[in-house]
């Protein structure tokens, strides 16, 4: 008897361990307004969640016995919101990646501040190309922004390292989980490219230098690949190529993120991006209202920065802004309207905004200017999933998809609406109480109500 009890206990513990400590409960949300995104809105829908996935969704579906039921009356259920470009979850004090080539890297992981770098002479020194950096290796569930973002209704984010011209590979992460590894849905979301220079005295110091440098890196990578393959085939006659971590990282790229805000930048990047024979996405895109037909023709999606340009707070009261500035201030919020009307796929990102919830406020502004709420929701969910090739798992409320849900009391875009609860991988979270001042946001831990 004692023995049997022991065996039973051991078995139980083993099972529990396998399913991780807090296994997502089997539960149902009943009688809610369900925005499936992939299909029609269900006025009295029921969503069944099991093992972190959506088990079933529909109106009037039977709820099995023993399932925890949440009364969804008066609640709106959305697929978990996705922020398509951020640095959430990556600690701000990421150790500065050494700029020197691999050969010069200091032993001991190079975690310390590297000694003064030798002067960069050109592309061969691979300056600011940190293609071996992966957001998936850096994310930490303890980062405060994760809770802040989740409290605003975001269940998923695409997070990128941002230092350098080729800053590294982004990761699609769920905003919940015990470890960084558990959060990661896709460690190869794309390579983050920036064209800002660090000024004089360093290569590349100009925009044209950056563009030429990026081209050179791609040419070098293609050659490196050939040399590597040739050496693998026949190490006797073919020379052994020197290992180059910058090129290794580049060859692992499946998607490129290129910056483009103004019309000129968008047109330039559409041409430039096509040179690399790698799928690419433009981020920024506030002037895309002017270039919808070009974007449509190129079939390139946009990750729209929704920090709509406003009059700078501390600007000179007598300064008369330029027509271009006024035009962008006026027209930028209509970009989602234009993109949706033209059928250009777009998602949105919080970059530059003070708080994640401001993304929703910014979209509300576009809705007031003619954006259909359904298109706004799609940009926050399924479109983002499609852009990152994860629409099989994310972005809509369908059987088999991840149990990522955002549940609100009231319409998502209504000012008075509050987020009631969030499900990430089937695990329930309630929003953290609003912090008194924005800089100290997310200070309090949210009580977890997982059962």
């Amino acid at each position, binding site marked *: 008897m004692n023995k049997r009890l022991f065996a039973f206990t051991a078995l139980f513990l083993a099972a529990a361990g396998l399913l991780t400590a807090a296994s997502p409960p089997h539960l149902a949300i009943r009688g809610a307004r369900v925005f499936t995104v992939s299909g029609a809105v269900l006025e009295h829908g029921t969503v069944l969640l099991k093992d972190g996935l959506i088990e079933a969704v529909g109106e009037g579906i039977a709820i099995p016995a023993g399932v925890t039921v949440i009364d969804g009356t008066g609640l709106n259920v959305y697929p978990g919101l996705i922020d398509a470009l951020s640095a959430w979850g990556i600690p701000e004090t990421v150790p500065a990646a050494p700029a020197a080539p691999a050969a010069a890297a200091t032993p001991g992981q190079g975690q310390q501040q590297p000694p003064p770098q030798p002067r960069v002479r050109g592309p061969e020194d691979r300056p600011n190309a940190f293609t071996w950096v992966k957001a998936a290796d850096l994310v930490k569930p303890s980062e405060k922004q994760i809770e802040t973002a989740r409290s605003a209704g975001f269940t998923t984010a695409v997070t990128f390292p941002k230092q350098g011209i080729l800053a590294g590979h982004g990761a699609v992460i769920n905003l919940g989980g015990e470890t960084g590894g558990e959060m990661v849905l896709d460690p190869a979301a794309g390579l983050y490219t920036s064209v*800002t*220079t*660090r*000024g*004089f005295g360093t290569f590349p110091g100009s925009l044209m230098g950056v563009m030429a440098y990026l081209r050179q890196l791609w040419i070098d990578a293609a050659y490196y690949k050939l040399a590597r393959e040739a050496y693998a085939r026949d190490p006797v006659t073919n020379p052994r190529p020197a290992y180059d971590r910058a090129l290794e990282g580049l060859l692992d790229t499946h998607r490129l993120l290129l910056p483009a805000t103004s019309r000129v930048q968008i047109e330039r990047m559409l041409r430039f991006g096509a040179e690399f024979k790698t799928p690419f996405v433009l981020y920024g895109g506030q002037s895309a209202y002017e270039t919808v037909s070009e974007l449509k023709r190129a079939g390139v999606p946009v990750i729209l920065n929704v920090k709509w340009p406003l009059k*700078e*707070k*501390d*600007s*000179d*009261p*007598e*300064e*008369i802004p*330029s*027509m*271009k500035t006024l035009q962008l201030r006026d027209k930028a919020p209509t970009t989602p309207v234009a993109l949706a009307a033209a059928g250009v796929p777009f998602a949105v990102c919080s970059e530059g905004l003070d708080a994640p919830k401001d993304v929703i406020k910014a979209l509300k502004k576009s809705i007031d200017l003619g954006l259909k709420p359904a298109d706004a929701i799609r940009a926050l969910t399924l479109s983002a999933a499609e852009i990152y090739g994860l629409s099989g798992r994310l972005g809509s409320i369908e059987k088999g998809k991840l149990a990522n849900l955002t549940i609100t009391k009231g319409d998502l875009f209504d000012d008075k609406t509050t987020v009631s609860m969030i499900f990430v991988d089937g695990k329930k979270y309630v929003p953290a109480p609003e912090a008194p001042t924005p800089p100290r946001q997310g200070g309090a831990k949210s009580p977890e109500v997982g059962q």
Partner: protein
Amino acid sequence: MNRALIASLAFIVVLAATAAPASAEEGGGSFLLKNVTLHPVSGPKLDNASVLVVDGRIAEVGMKVAAPKTKLRVIDGKGLHVWPGMINSGTTVGLSEIGSIRETNDTGELGIFDPQLRPIVALNPESEYIPVVRANGITMAALLPAMPGGRRSDGANTQLIGGQISIAHLAGWTWEEMEVRRAGGMHLSYPAISAVSFDPATFSTRRGSAYPKAKQQHDLQVQELSGFFDDARAYWTAKKAGVAVKADLKFEAMIPVLDGKVPLVAFASHEREIKEAIEFAERQNVKLVLANVIKPRSALELIAKKKIPVILGRTQVGTDEEDDPYDEPYTLPARLNEAGVKFCFGTFDEQFARNLPYQASQGVPFGLPYDAALRSVTLSAAEIWGIDKDYGSIEAGKVADLVVTDGDLLEVKTDVKMLFIRGSEADLETKHTRLYKKYMARP
């Protein structure tokens, strides 16, 4: 033997005197210039006219000027035009030779208030720029002690009062010979709110965001400036009252300004600074001249109403901001003229000081009457500097600063054939002509 030595010495002295490139001593040459087209500026053009110059001054102007019986140089100027010498109303010519070589620069003294500085004493008569400027028909210049626009990293001006503005002839052996007015004006870089920050990473300027800080700096500097004027006035008052005061060169230099004898030349480019500078000058009860006015907007009415003269800067420039009409810098002289504002031109540099006539003529296709353009660089300039009794036009009694050309004075294609400063013929050879001759003679 002793006599022979004296004779040869005397010969050398005579030689030296005749070789003088431009002896501009008072009591210079006498001559009759006849058969010329005369542009007196003070009156209408005269064809086939003559000018009689006696001892450096214009004795007679007209159609029938009889040559005195004495042996006099007579110049037949058939086909040539005669104009008053032009005045560059703001330049560092002769003070700064090569910007990058510290030893050749005598401008921009350190310190916020330097009213005691007199740029005339720093004038280098050997400057290569002087003959070049002169050869374009410019006989006189207002020498700036400093170039406006120096800013500290916090947006504040590096200097407020840079020194006196001296008026000098552009020919002479020494600065004393070249001096016209030691203190023709007092330079002031009026503090502007500079909410423009420079981003060294992109090598571009950025507007906005820095405003509250810039405003604060500006207010502090205005306060400092008022304080300085108040102190100077207190010094002057005490001195007038016979109180024993410790001599202070800065305050001494301010007395003619406070007394209204020397104008305060305030560099103020935009609407806000212009209005503030006008208000400041009124409060301090000093005579004001505005310099480097670029975009006065609504301040133009005020300038006109208060009858404040203006020294304009370069007109052949691009627009100040991207939405400005392309011709805004070109039409500015016409707009001032229409409003009845008296204006002249300065180049505010040394290398391009010779381009003064083109600065004035740029406005002509954009609405400025030709006569107003010509007047701006001659008589108006003389009036603004308070030297119109002697300069600025071709009239009997005035100093013979004359330019003889083969065409329109303000036209690029025109050549200056002769140039007289105080009646003395000035050398028209320049570094440019020397190099031209040298390389034309290359085998």
